[in-house]
């Protein structure tokens, strides 16, 4: 490697013949000097560097050499307490700081990131093992871009987000695969919206976060607005998640940990956003530009060593071109270069840690053992450091472990399909739903498939495109919440009227606004109607459940009595059980075509429901009075409000448009509001008709199908309502009503693996249960934490909050140009 004087044949003459690439290393010295000047690294709390309370430091290693880079402080629980206290102390003034001033700070941060861009890029490469090309050209520029973008939202918050307030102290936990970019995704929107932050970087990759702390000092960010604590997930991370004074947890990482956090925070009232794993499909149709497809796979699965949550790791290829594409892929893989991540001419750097390397090796072995065909290039990897070669599996079926499990390494599994429908089925045959890539020169086909794949980001004829202006986040078990774009802001704000946290002094739920249930008695089983008080012997009326457009008897064969406030029995409803829920969920799935119904038609049906309710307004008012005992005027007002609410969502049905984000270059990024799917709705006892309508109407207006558990105390308004639905042209299965014990039925819904979301308005304990049980399939939840919502107040009872909860945003990237 030493340059020698020319002697025949000179080195230049030799290279002139071989035309090989030579080394092109970026110098590590400035970054190593920076580390030397700063270590051992303490914790950044309240604007100061402080030593970890336990006095413990561990090594952060360079994965390219497996040698130690720096000593990093390990935060204790007490350190986390201090950091949260610092953030709390800073919150009042930071949240009251004018948006324009917050924008100035964030603008300064963006500028400083750019000023130190090479130092940050080299630090990131040293700490993470990713190539300098990526840190220099992708990670760090996107970090700066994110702070610029959200500086803009800080500036605009007061005018564009009226009626919202910051959450408070936000705990943020980020992964090791994009250390500084994930920091930016987390911190920028939080600060823009006036929150203060305690961030824990990943144990493997803390250095750029610590450099960021220095930037916060440089720009004079007020002490405590950003706090950075390094350490173990099990100690510092847990302490942060469990801290009672944290208002929100934002996490990016594995689905297993995300599930743990969902359970940990269940019922606490902490807002939660999770960006989790993926096994994203990369779908190639026979009319695609195959050479560009091949480069797409390089960007999809050999970007960042495949350690990308949205990596296109499942290659789905139309059968007719599968062999041809495989050959092209192999030829391309042969030309990939792996080695020193600081070398500017490397495609693939080091795997983040020996542990991760072992895990990749283990999964690849499973793939081989299960009979898939593995292929790797003929060249060998560096032996020092953690390196793994690009790997292609063919002869894979969905039943293979490697086709289902996230490998988080440079391993591509390839399967073939015959038809677009089969491509979609394969693409959706996964627990995950983070991203997808679709390759076709036929825009009809590409957009159709993009629409049908369940994923938060769909890239047409491209992959792994990121921009601050576009939301990013998952469907299904890839998590919930969005980062980026305007949609990302709502993770860091809440309506000004809304209380934070869970109700602490759990009180008996008030069945109605004006008249609490007498002695809190539950409805008991009855076996006879003898207690029915009647003046004249009327024709027996048996409210049933409403499942799949049909009135259905309860599976249990039991009924529950319904009482008026005086304790008198006024009727009976079926006592629903888990099988009724099961049937209702199946009916709701059978009606999923509702999601594709034209907004105008959905509106027509909602208007028609309102019209038919109006016809029977007197009857519904009487029924409310019978159940709740409230005044005639109040019940009439509730019916009128319900009719109005139906009009509200009929109005919204064709107006809750998506956006077209301004993303780089020649490209449209379509942020489409899509239905979540099958929603379980557990209604409160308060306002038994209005709350019921207020929950159903936005859900179905946005294309969801629903399984509703009406007020347990006052279910008769809901059972009356199915007759309104039956006369309003609503397709069967869009609304299903299961009466019975709300908590038990809500639990079945929350546990159901094929329910996509649950709204629960009830007790704090029930809210906790719903959030906890939802973790099994990471369904979206919206719960009241035991707080009462004033359904009669339009600010609380209707509006965009409901629409947002009824939808998830899919961002479809469509580059164009012939």
């Amino acid at each position: 490697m030493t340059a020698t004087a020319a002697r025949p044949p000179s080195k230049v003459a030799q290279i002139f013949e071989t035309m090989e690439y030579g080394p092109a290393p970026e110098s590590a010295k400035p970054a190593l000097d920076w580390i030397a000047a700063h270590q051992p690294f303490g914790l950044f709390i309240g604007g100061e560097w402080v030593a970890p309370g336990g006095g413990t430091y561990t090594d952060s290693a360079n994965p390219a050499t497996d040698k130690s880079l720096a000593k990093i402080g390990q935060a204790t629980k007490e350190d986390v307490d201090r950091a949260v206290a610092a953030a709390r102390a800073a919150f009042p003034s930071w949240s009251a700081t004018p948006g324009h001033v917050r924008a100035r700070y964030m603008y300064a941060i963006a500028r400083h990131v750019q000023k130190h861009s090479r130092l940050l890029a080299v630090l990131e490469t040293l700490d993470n093992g990713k190539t300098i090309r990526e840190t220099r050209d992708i990670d760090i520029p996107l970090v700066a871009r994110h702070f610029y973008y959200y500086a803009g939202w800080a500036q605009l918050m007061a005018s564009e987000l009226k009626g919202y307030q910051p959450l408070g102290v936000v705990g943020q936990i980020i992964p090791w695969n994009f250390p500084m970019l994930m920091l930016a995704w987390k911190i920028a929107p939080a600060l823009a919206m006036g929150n203060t932050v305690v961030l824990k970087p990943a144990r493997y990759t803390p250095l750029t976060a610590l450099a960021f702390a220095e930037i916060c000092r440089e720009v004079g960010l007020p002490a405590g607005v950003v706090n950075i604590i390094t350490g173990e997930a099990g100690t510092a991370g847990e302490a942060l998640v469990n801290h009672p004074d944290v208002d929100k947890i934002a996490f990016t990482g594995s689905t297993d940990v995300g599930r743990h956090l969902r359970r940990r925070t269940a019922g606490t009232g902490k807002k939660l956003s999770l960006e989790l794993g993926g096994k994203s499909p990369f779908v190639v149709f026979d009319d695609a530009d195959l050479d560009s497809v091949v480069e797409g796979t390089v960007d999809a699965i050999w970007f960042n060593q495949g350690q990308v949550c949205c990596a296109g790791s499942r290659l789905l290829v139309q059968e007719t071109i599968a062999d041809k594409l495989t050959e092209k892929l192999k030829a391309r893989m042969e030309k990939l270069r792996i080695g020193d991540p600081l070398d500017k001419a490397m495609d693939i750097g080091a795997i983040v840690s020996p542990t991760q390397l072992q895990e990749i090796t283990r999964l690849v072995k499973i793939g081989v053992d299960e009979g898939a065909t593995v292929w790797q290039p003929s060249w060998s990897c560096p032996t020092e450091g953690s390196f793994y070669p690009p790997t292609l599996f063919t002869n894979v079926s969905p039943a293979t472990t490697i086709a289902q499990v996230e490998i988080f390494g440079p391993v591509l599994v390839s399967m073939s399909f015959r038809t677009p429908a089969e491509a979609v089925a394969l693409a959706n045959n996964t627990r995950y739903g983070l991203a997808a890539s679709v390759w076709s020169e036929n825009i009809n086909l590409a957009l159709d498939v993009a629409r049908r794949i369940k994923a938060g980001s769909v890239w047409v004829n491209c992959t792994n495109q990121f921009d601050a202006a576009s939301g990013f986040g998952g469907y299904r078990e890839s998590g919930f919440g969005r980062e980026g774009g305007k949609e990302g802001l709502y993770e860091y704000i809440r309506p000004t009227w809304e209380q934070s946290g869970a109700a602490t002094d759990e009180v008996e739920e008030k069945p109605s606004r004006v008249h609490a249930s007498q002695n809190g008695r539950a409805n008991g089983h009855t076996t006879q109607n003898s207690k029915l008080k009647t003046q004249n012997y009327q024709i027996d009326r048996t409210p049933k459940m409403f499942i799949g457009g049909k009135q259905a008897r309860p599976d249990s064969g039991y009924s529950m009595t319904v009482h008026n406030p005086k304790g008198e029995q006024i009727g009976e409803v079926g006592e629903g059980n888990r099988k009724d829920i099961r049937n209702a969920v199946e009916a709701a799935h059978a009606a999923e075509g509702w999601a594709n119904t034209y907004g105008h038609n959905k509106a027509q049906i909602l208007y028609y429901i309102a019209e038919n309710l109006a016809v029977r307004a007197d009857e519904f008012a009487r029924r409310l009075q019978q159940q709740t005992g409230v005044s005639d005027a109040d019940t009439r007002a509730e019916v009128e409000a319900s009719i109005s609410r139906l009009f509200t969502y009929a109005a919204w049905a064709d107006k809750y448009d998506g956006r077209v984000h301004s993303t780089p270059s020649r490209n449209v990024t379509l942020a489409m509001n899509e239905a979540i799917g099958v929603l379980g709705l557990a209604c409160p006892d308060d306002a038994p008709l209005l709350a019921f309508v207020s929950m159903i109407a936005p859900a179905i207006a946005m294309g969801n199908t629903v399984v509703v558990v009406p007020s347990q105390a006052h279910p008769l308004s809901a059972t009356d309502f199915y007759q309104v639905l039956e006369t309003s042209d609503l397709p069967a299965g869009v609304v299903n009503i299961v009466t019975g014990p709300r908590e038990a039925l809500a639990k079945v819904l929350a546990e159901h693996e094929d329910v996509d979301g649950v709204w629960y308005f009830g007790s704090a304990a029930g809210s906790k249960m719903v959030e906890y049980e939802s973790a099994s399939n990471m369904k979206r939840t919206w719960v009241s934490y035991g707080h009462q919502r004033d359904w009669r107040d339009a600010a609380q009872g209707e509006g965009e909050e409901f629409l947002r909860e009824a939808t998830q945003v899919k961002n479809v990237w469509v580059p164009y140009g012939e």
Partner: protein
Amino acid sequence: MAAPAITRPTSVSQNGHGPDTQVDNHRLARNAGMPLDLGIIEEVQANRSAIERRADTLSKRRTVKKEWQAAWLLRAITCIDLTTLAGDDTPGNVLRLCAKARQPVRGDLLDALGVANLGLTVGAVCVYHNLVSTAVEALQGTNIPVAAVSTGFPAGQNPLPLKIAEIEASVAAGAREIDIVISRAHVLTGDWQALYDEVRAFRAACGEAHMKTILATGELATMRNIARASFVCMMAGADFIKTSTGKESVNATLPVSLVMVRAIREYQERSGYLVGFKPAGGIRSAKSALDWLILMKEELGDDWLRPNLFRIGASGLLTDIERQLEYFVTGHYSAAYHQPMV
């Protein structure tokens, strides 16, 4: 400190000259063309955005430094078609061009680089027909071919018989390479048969002279047209496909080149023939010459790093390369006037 360099596969020839048992006869043979296959033309896809992304990152994914850069720049020189195509060309400036073609780099620099014994020359000298005989005479005693632009260059709007006659005249005058222009109208009207017939006829007229077909990509409107025209020209027997005349408003670009070299690869897979590539027009910096070499190495392989399969049509480029070589040798940034002018 640096990780060990990776082992590269050696099964494919890394070496463009000398006998190589791996190379079959077909690969060494001149492209004979093939019957027009409209199926290939119809199924061509070229996604502009994806192509631009690849072109954009290519030169960010690869770089050569120090000795490697110097060696690659010397290699680039051997691939230059040193060109003058101006209305005011006279024997005087063409003679000067030919002298530079023989001795493209200062002797002291070549000595310092240890490459004086390589007999470095440019790939060819490229002129209008009227100056072919002047150039041929000036290059006597070298192996530097003279290339003539032809067939109504640059617009190609002449009668076909005149185009054929022009080729024949240049060949008769000693041109060993003919850079023809295609009729863009055939591409824009989708008349692939007419394009094929035209280029076939040019190839026949060239005889032993090698034919480079200029697509004038800046006038073909779409990436797909460029890919289709590339295939038709190769099927019709082009030895090289070339981007531009240098006279269009947009000339050689990396994205367009990517489309063309991918077509070359596909054609090789289908026919077995290796077709050369020549970007021309607007390539003025040493850095951009390296970008094109990287493109060739990455997309087609090392065979395409030699003048038999790769040329760069340029004039000012050579001076910038010389400056970079001087900088490598001396450590001082160079001045253009240090280099003997073209």
